């Protein structure tokens, strides 16, 4: 692998509007060979639109997209053969049987992967002859992933690859993504799963409302947005106003899930004392009280807000 290579994907100033609504407002994004880049954001942040603009399914209103050193608008069949795509809606024909479908797709490439091996790797061999319409959501996801990889791409777009998968299948998918990375493939995946981003990505791009709000390695993001955190569980929907007033203003305080509270920022012993004193004043037992480094989830919620989308 050459030390210096052009990014496999280079997106600059991407803008996409749907009528009056601007879904993507100037996103810059790179994906490199041998690395996983995670596009992380809440629903409606513009992740899928960004991927669709990259793979030629939508034409951007502004900005540029370069894939494997070539402008997206100029790509032809040979370029498409070097890029693998897994879409969120799957895109599998309902009547088809998985193994036949993969064999057919392999015929569209000059040097495809070994279909049987790929199917076995993703556990597709267990339902190889069942029509797509009878498969579970997780099984379809795996077929769609195989379809993205059957051409042995150099750049792969995975739009929420592990949505709807059980834990076993999720780990299989993660293993496959890591192996792609080891083989020098550039992977861009969208997710709102923090664990997925933390475990897989070497670069995380957090988007919200069509903009990049933070970017960097998971370690960089967690260290620059809050060095540590206090977590505890208690009754849901507590009134946090008084606690907020008694803590330094640079700390972010919130309920990440019903009954799960996080205080993120520069946590020192005085902060711990303030929090526990507040709990005592409320007659609350802070269950599973833990002090630790902020997680990517803390950063994400801090940056994108806690309102439900």
């Amino acid at each position, binding site marked *: *692998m050459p030390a210096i290579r052009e990014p496999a994907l280079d997106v600059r100033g991407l803008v996409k509007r749907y009528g009056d609504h601007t879904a993507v407002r100037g996103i810059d994004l790179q994906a490199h060979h041998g690395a996983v880049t995670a596009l992380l954001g809440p629903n409606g942040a513009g992740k899928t639109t960004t991927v669709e603009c990259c*793979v*030629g*399914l939508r034409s951007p209103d502004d900005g540029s997209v370069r894939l494997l050193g070539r402008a997206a608008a100029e790509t032809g*069949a*040979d*370029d*498409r*053969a*070097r*890029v693998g*795509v897994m*879409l969120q*809606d*799957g*895109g*599998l*024909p*309902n*009547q*088809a049987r998985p193994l036949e479908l993969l064999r*057919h*797709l392999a*015929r*569209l*490439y*000059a*040097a495809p*992967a*070994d279909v049987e*091996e*790929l199917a*076995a*790797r993703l*556990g597709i061999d267990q339902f190889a002859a069942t029509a797509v319409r009878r498969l579970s959501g997780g099984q379809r996801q795996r077929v*769609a992933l195989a*379809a993205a*990889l059957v*051409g*042995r*791409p*150099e750049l792969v777009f995975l739009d929420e690859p592990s949505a709807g998968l059980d*834990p*076993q*299948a999720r*780990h*299989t998918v993660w*293993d*496959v993504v890591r*192996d*792609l990375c080891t*083989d*020098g*493939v550039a992977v861009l995946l969208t997710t709102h799963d923090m664990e997925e981003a933390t475990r897989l990505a070497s670069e995380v791009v957090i988007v919200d409302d069509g903009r990049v709000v933070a970017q960097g390695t998971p370690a960089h993001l967690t260290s620059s947005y809050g060095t540590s955190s206090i977590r505890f569980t208690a009754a849901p929907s507590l009134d946090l106003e008084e606690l907020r007033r008694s803590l330094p203003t640079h700390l972010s305080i919130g309920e990440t899930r019903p009954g799960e509270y996080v205080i993120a920022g520069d946590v020192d012993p005085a902060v711990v004392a303030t929090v526990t004193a507040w709990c005592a004043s409320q007659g609350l037992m802070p269950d599973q009280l833990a002090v630790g480094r902020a997680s990517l989830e803390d950063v994400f919620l801090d940056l994108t807000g806690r309102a439900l989308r």
Partner: protein
Amino acid sequence: MTFVDGPRASRSLAVQSQETPTRTHAAPPAARRVLAQAAWETRVTLRNGEQLLLTLVLPVIALVAMSRTSLIGLDVPAGHQRVDVIAPGVLAMAVMSSAFTGQAIATAFDRRYGVLRLLGTTPLGRSGLLLGRVLAVLAVEVVQFAVLGGVAAWLGWRPSATSLLLAVPLLVLGTAAFAALGLLMAGTMRAEAVLAGANLVWVLLLLGGGVLLPTAELPGALGDVAALLPSGALADGLRSVFLDGALPPSPLPVLAGWTAVAVAACVRWFKWQ
């Protein structure tokens, strides 16, 4: 770190570790991709029960029932039998079944499920996808014509070689017109609406569009209108070719006109997603 049972693949999924990093041709030639797609689509269509009902079973039933019984009054020219009038209409019915109704429903659901989007990102591309689909329609039609021709021959149909040759441009242009109209429906309406609409249009054209009954035998103005529809033009044209051995002047321009309008409308309004 492996969390699943079973053997892990030893070989890599990617290209770089096995071969030279850059390939000159990552995709096979366009013709091979399109033919692969056409073969795939043909197989899927011929294996689908509902499609077979539409493309083969119903036309065979119509051919046998209308030739063997006189439930429907028909003007049979002197020197001809009922099957000579029925068979050309059933060929037009077969074209409508596969090029229009079957194709429109398949494309509409492929669009709904994102198949058009996904295949658009493969080396096949959108144009290859459409070309493959049209070739698959033609392949299914060859099967239909062989089966229907065989049944009609058994019923006593003896078309001349000249008639068969003259029928080719009509069948090709009729397929083009109906395929374009089917695509227009599939690319602009919801899948459920296409399912209902394409079947309804098929039934209406069969009965009132000059397909099974010659436009001349339809009541009043309906006959004049039907002659200007792609269904009436195709079926009337085929009946002239097979009954008189001559290609009348109007059907080809009518079919070409419908094709041009439908293709232009597709270019303007077809939505891939």
